[in-house]
């Protein structure tokens, strides 16, 4: 990319391994770090709010960064005010986050609330930053089914990254050990949620059964013996052009011809 390095801050969190539950770098945050590295190189700032002693944070430093800022917060704190205050004075042009945390509530609200607090626009599901010219960024947003959408947004903005972003690079052990965690003392705001809500081990959800709502025996018999679908329109004895026209009309109606 030809533009000057942006001032990019990536917010990182401590993740949990999906099977063992062991602390690790969070998958989406690592992708956000990777995206930040491709935009700002070594100038990328990492920011974490939480425990500065967490070993899992070093995995982000192992991706090729020398230091990271940690706003010291206890486990049950609401980190939003601390992050908001820090970012307001950090002079960042782009704040990258994952789209939801792997531990705790994991509501995915943080990027939205940060954008609201800072009054910056928010891009959801950032896949790529194509160009930044004159304070306006042109970015690609990832959509379901592998689709992409091009958006134009004025700097500064917040962007969340989900699993459609490019895969994160590996973390190297040596740089991870050598990296510095710069600790900062900030005010602590308690989060009231867990006073009224309980976290419990996830219950497997019941599989939905096919319920036949038949009132009479005849209807039950019909439902039991009927084929899955009655079948649609069958066009016979047509010229290929007429057949193609019918298919074309359906494809246009379903809006899949782009």
């Amino acid at each position, binding site marked *: 990319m030809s533009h000057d390095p942006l001032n990019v801050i990536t917010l990182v969190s401590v993740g949990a391994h999906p099977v063992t539950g062991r602390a690790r770098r969070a998958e989406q945050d690592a992708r956000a770090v990777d995206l930040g590295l491709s935009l700002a190189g070594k100038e990328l700032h990492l920011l974490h709010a939480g425990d500065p002693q967490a070993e899992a944070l070093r995995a982000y430093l192992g991706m090729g960064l020398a230091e990271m800022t940690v706003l010291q917060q206890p486990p049950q704190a609401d980190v939003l005010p601390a992050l908001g205050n820090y970012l307001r004075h950090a002079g960042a042009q782009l704040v990258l986050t994952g789209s939801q945390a792997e531990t705790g509530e994991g*509501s995915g609200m943080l990027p939205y609330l940060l954008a609201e607090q800072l009054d910056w626009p928010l891009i959801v599901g950032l896949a790529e930053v194509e160009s930044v010219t004159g304070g306006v960024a042109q970015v690609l947003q990832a959509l379901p089914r592998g689709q992409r959408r091009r958006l134009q947004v004025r700097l500064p903005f917040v962007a969340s990254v989900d699993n459609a972003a490019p895969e994160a690079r590996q973390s190297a052990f040596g740089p991870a050990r050598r990296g510095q965690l710069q600790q900062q003392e900030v005010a602590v705001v308690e989060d009231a949620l867990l006073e009224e809500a309980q976290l419990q081990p996830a219950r497997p959800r019941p599989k939905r059964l096919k319920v036949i709502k038949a009132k009479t025996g005849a209807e039950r018999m019909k439902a039991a013996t009927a084929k899955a679908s009655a079948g649609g329109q069958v066009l016979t004895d047509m010229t290929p052009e007429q057949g193609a026209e019918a298919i074309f009309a359906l494809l246009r109606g379903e809006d899949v011809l782009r």
Partner: protein
Amino acid sequence: MSDIIRRDPRSEWIARNRLHPLHASLQALGASWVGPSGLIRKNPHAVAFVGPNGLKRIDRSGAQQGGGGKRASISAAAQLPLHIIEQPSFHIVVVPDMVGGRLSSHDKDLLGLASMLAGSEGAVVAVVFGEHKESAFDTAGVDRLLHIQGEAFVGYTPEQRIMALRAVDDQLAPRHWLFPDSRTGGGELGRRLAAKLGERPATRVWQVADGQCIGRAGAGQQDLARRAPRLILAAAECADPVGETRHEVRAIELEGTLAHSLTRIDNLGAVAVDPALTPMAEAEFILSGGNGVRDWELFHQAAEVLGATEGASRVAVDDGFMPRDRQVGATGTWVTARVYLAVGISGAVQHLQGIATCDKVVAINKDPGCDMVKRADLAVIGDSTAILQALIERVSEYRQGDLRDVA
């Protein structure tokens, strides 16, 4: 149906038996009613019935019931009861995704949850942006429909939509806002609204009961049980869809005009993605070829022109025309495409299993009796090469017409 008039002893028996569930549907309709002036009016033509010998008879004893020629009405008359809320004491607002302009199964589950929360007092309001193609809002459980149209809501316009939803919040003061927690728009819109309104939402909720809700937390290893907040982002299969009632889809309007906000995010439109690179399991539009395809060059060309991801049946893969990772079916990939175009595939059971979740299936085949034609929503019987050729020409013509319009 033949014109021979027959007695139907079973329907006569149902008509006599007041406890039978179909009793009401077999009563002669419109024989007498109360007119506008309060007088009882009778339709003299409906009084008579056709007797077994084909002559019209009038039975003055009042015992006249049932009768011939009514057999077809049994199934047709069974209509779901209409659920009417004249003066709702509160509102439950649902913002469905409307993928492709129709209610998705996730949306229907959400409407089911909404009507459960609304009970018999509240009204379920669905907020729909832009054009839609849905015709079954009534059986999905929508009491009120707020259709917000306009230039500003076409395409990806989260900021405009949030402005509109805030206006809805001011107007209706809903007891609950329900959004589908999906990647197709609902998850984003719900969270944006939550941030704007300053409400803490419950996300990935899969159960709401007795004022409590349970949702997945973290990476899915834990559940969070809490009091149901005003904003709920519900996962798929959070409740059963409405199935027992019809609802009056009464249109309501947004009061006042919407303030036009300055958009900070400009939509430059969809980007052409190479369909060959999208994973087949999540491709939206698949062109799949089987044993009936003779000209594979033409098939690849068609996929390129249509912008479809390529798939194949097992036979085509075994014969070496397509790579193994393109195989659709039980032994290959289970696809979730919205439109599946099957060329020369007869539809083995394993293949039909693999495309079970596809919305629209189009078949091009020589054999009108094959299973794929029975499964398909649209089947064209004929030579696949000629039809593909014609389709390529038609689509290229359409694309060029588009370019001319732009220029």
